[in-house]
């Protein structure tokens, strides 16, 4: 088995790890439990961060905009101060540190790869201040705990999470015949219902109609944030009977009797166990780990595991890894920038993320450049994880990641930025060679390409070496 299996399903091997005698078992044994988050610094709760979100939007919208309505300069200044005070510029940096610390040091890196996958399947795209306050804790508190449960349970949690409901506007969706809908002349917002069908469960392959979307939106009416004058839209999610559309609903030919808040769980059950949903999500899993265009032969065993286990994600993950192992030598998979960065960080023990002591924040000054570094790098290489442009998340296809500038950014990172992230004890040529040997079959050929610089340990020399190594076809993809 090639060493690239450790990069196909994880992040490669760090300098103090060695290849396992049984790589398939090594990988499969990582999926039964949820590893603890290792970040030694602050890990705030979703609820705490939502409170901060509330302070920020309230302060800006209800206080500053009114106070400085005639003075844009004073307004901007006051707004910047509020950013610092509420951590609006900080929490996303901290979340990136938590995430990258995990992928770098986790003893269950294969589990972490699935964590990234599900976070992107149920993506929160760049909207309002979600990336600043909420997407990170959503990944930790909604996605992660559900990874040892069933797919259906995952969909239930995601669909009623504050983050997803805010992201897809379900709080603005009123049943037209509900009490509030009639009083206020409001109607449904289909956004969340459409994405629940299209992106999260059955996909357009199920052939649903506009009427199905409307009917599902009716079922979902009432699942909304609590609103009050102080917390605005950041209140907890509840079921507001006065927003809920009365009457029976029909989605994909199935009738759902008028049953208030219980309707949603029933329809999610049917969607999450729908054969087309199972095929759609299995295909996406295989696409992530095996190849851009997985075949039925690759996907079918995953579908079988799904059916046999009633959608148990542990069993599904194991089936995916088994398939990834089986096809490891004959398929190729391109890695998007963030996974590439995580792999480089683990394989070459780079100095990211910043230590938790240095990540500490006082809410008095702007985050400093070192604290912003990892997030800045992610942005510059084009893959800021919590800022996908659309609710379908980041693409898993090579074609979407290969533009001239996006490739150049990788050369830039590896040759200019990376040398500054090499730990002082790791600057020797021998260190690079040992990392290559630990992770690549053709390490000798790779070494020969950087042999000219074997005596160099300056930033420039390291840049020349890493600039070449990190952009070789066998590193950009497996």
């Amino acid at each position, binding site marked *: 088995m090639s060493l690239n299996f450790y990069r196909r399903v994880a992040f490669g091997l760090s300098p103090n790890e060695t290849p396992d005698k049984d790589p398939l078992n090594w990988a499969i044994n990582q999926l039964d439990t949820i590893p603890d988050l290792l970040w030694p610094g602050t890990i705030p709760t979703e609820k705490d961060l939502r409170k901060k979100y509330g302070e920020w939007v309230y302060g800006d919208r209800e206080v500053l905009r009114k106070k400085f309505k005639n003075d*844009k300069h004073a307004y901007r200044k006051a707004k910047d101060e509020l950013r610092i005070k509420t951590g609006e510029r900080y929490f996303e940096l901290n979340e990136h540190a938590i995430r990258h610390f995990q992928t770098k040091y986790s003893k269950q890196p294969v589990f972490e790869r699935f964590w990234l996958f599900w976070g992107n399947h149920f993506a929160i795209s760049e909207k309002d201040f979600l990336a600043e306050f909420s997407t990170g804790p959503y990944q930790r508190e909604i996605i992660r705990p559900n990874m040892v449960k069933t797919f259906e349970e995952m969909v239930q949690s995601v669909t009623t999470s504050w983050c997803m409901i805010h992201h897809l506007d379900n709080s603005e969706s009123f049943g037209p015949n509900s009490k509030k809908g009639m009083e206020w002349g409001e109607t449904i917002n289909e*956004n969340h219902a459409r994405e629940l069908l299209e992106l999260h469960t059955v996909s357009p392959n199920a052939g649903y109609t506009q009427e199905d979307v409307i009917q599902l939106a009716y079922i979902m009416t009432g699942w909304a944030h609590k609103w009050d004058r102080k917390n605005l839209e950041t209140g907890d999610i509840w079921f507001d009977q006065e927003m809920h559309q009365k009457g029976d609903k029909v989605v994909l030919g199935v009738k759902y009797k008028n049953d208030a808040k219980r309707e949603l769980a029933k329809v999610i059950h049917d969607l999450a166990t729908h054969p087309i949903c199972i095929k759609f999500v299995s295909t996406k899993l295989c696409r992530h780990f095996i190849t851009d265009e997985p075949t039925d032969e690759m996907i079918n065993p995953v579908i079988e595991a799904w059916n046999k286990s009633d959608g148990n994600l542990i069993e599904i993950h194991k089936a995916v890894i088994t398939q990834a192992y089986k096809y490891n030598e004959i398929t190729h998979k391109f890695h998007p920038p963030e996974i590439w960065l995580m792999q480089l960080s683990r394989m070459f023990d780079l100095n990211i993320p910043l230590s938790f002591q240095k990540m500490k924040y006082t809410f008095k000054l702007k985050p400093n450049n070192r604290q912003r570094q990892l997030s800045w790098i992610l942005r510059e290489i084009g893959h800021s994880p919590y800022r996908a442009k659309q609710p379908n998340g980041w693409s898993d296809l*090579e074609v979407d990641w290969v533009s001239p500038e996006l490739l150049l950014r990788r050369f830039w990172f590896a*040759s200019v930025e990376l040398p500054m992230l090499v730990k002082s004890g790791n600057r020797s040529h021998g260190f690079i060679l040992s990392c290559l040997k630990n992770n690549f079959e053709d390490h000798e050929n790779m070494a020969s390409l950087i042999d000219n610089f074997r005596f160099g340990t300056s930033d420039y020399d390291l840049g020349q070496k890493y600039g070449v190594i990190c952009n070789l076809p066998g590193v950009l*993809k497996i």
Partner: protein
Amino acid sequence: MNCTRRNFLIGGSTTLFLSGYFPKISFASMQKKNLIIISLRGGMDGLTAVPVIGDKRLKKLRKKLILEDVLNLNSDFGLHPKLEIFHKLWQKNQAAFVHATNIPYTGRSHFDGQNLMETGAHIPYKEKTGWLGRGLLASNIIGKGLAISLPMPLLLRGVPQNNNFFPSPDFVETKLIDQIYNEFKGEHNELIKSTLDTIRKRPLSMQIATDSDDRKKLALEAAKQLKDQSGPRVAVFDLDGFDTHAAQGGVDGAHADELEEVNKIVTILHENLGQAFDNTLILTLTEFGRTIKQNGGYGTEHGYGSAILMAGGLLKKSQVYTDWPGLKKKELFEGRDLNSTIDSRAVYNSAMSICFNQDPEFLRKEVFWGDELPDLSQELFKI
């Protein structure tokens, strides 16, 4: 004067069914024509950019957002003082505006709206390619798109081999690429290899690191590329920050700052395209306009109808082309927004037909699923 509906409509949609399209092979069509789209994200306020000075209602509804020193266009419309270049070009018949126009989207969500302004579709997130990419593909113009952004914008997706320009913070030695180029073997490395080819063929000026936050430098490089007869034919710029819920202001407000950015880009393009400006169309694109009435924070909320700012030598004449819906309460969309009486996709479809030498009818079918979009080429552009 009292602006009432249809005062300004000249020619317009009556010619829609009468004018057939006659493709001409003339000297003009042999010259490379450039189409430049500037995306204005956040909702550009057409009434701030091109205020209707002939209607007193606007002043009444926007007491704190009143513009002084409005540049004069005609007796009915003025121009925001920060849009100087458009005023200058207006005198030479090289600037024009389409007013009370928008994509057919009334939902007021930035994300859905921006998705639709790029895909040109009706349902958010349904289409995965952009109208400009589909237009290029249908016209068999491959490898001629240039995006001034890091990822390939959705607007340009759908046609292969586009280039983009958004340099990294530091110089990247392309000699690194030479060192590993031959390692890219086999079919599965073809895409990366051909992209490396595109990089290696890039002119030196595109290899120099610059501050990608400096839009001036980016525009300068884009002009340089577009000027080249064998260079790109389409360029896409991206601006955001038009979402001015507060302190929108008048002459110096937050919206004015953004308009100034547009002005900067167009000025640089005009100065540096030289003769090629005569064969160029520059059009803006936004997801929606803004409410007529100022809000409690002296800003405006998400609205509907907006305006398209246009510049370039391929314009027919200086004009504010509109089917003016009026600003009386009952004339407003949902009682609050400037209405949209022209589907802005008709303007874009017509612009593509001019720049790509294509039958607008053909493009309408290939790009916009045969949606009913009148051909405005004769009204707006030089044929």
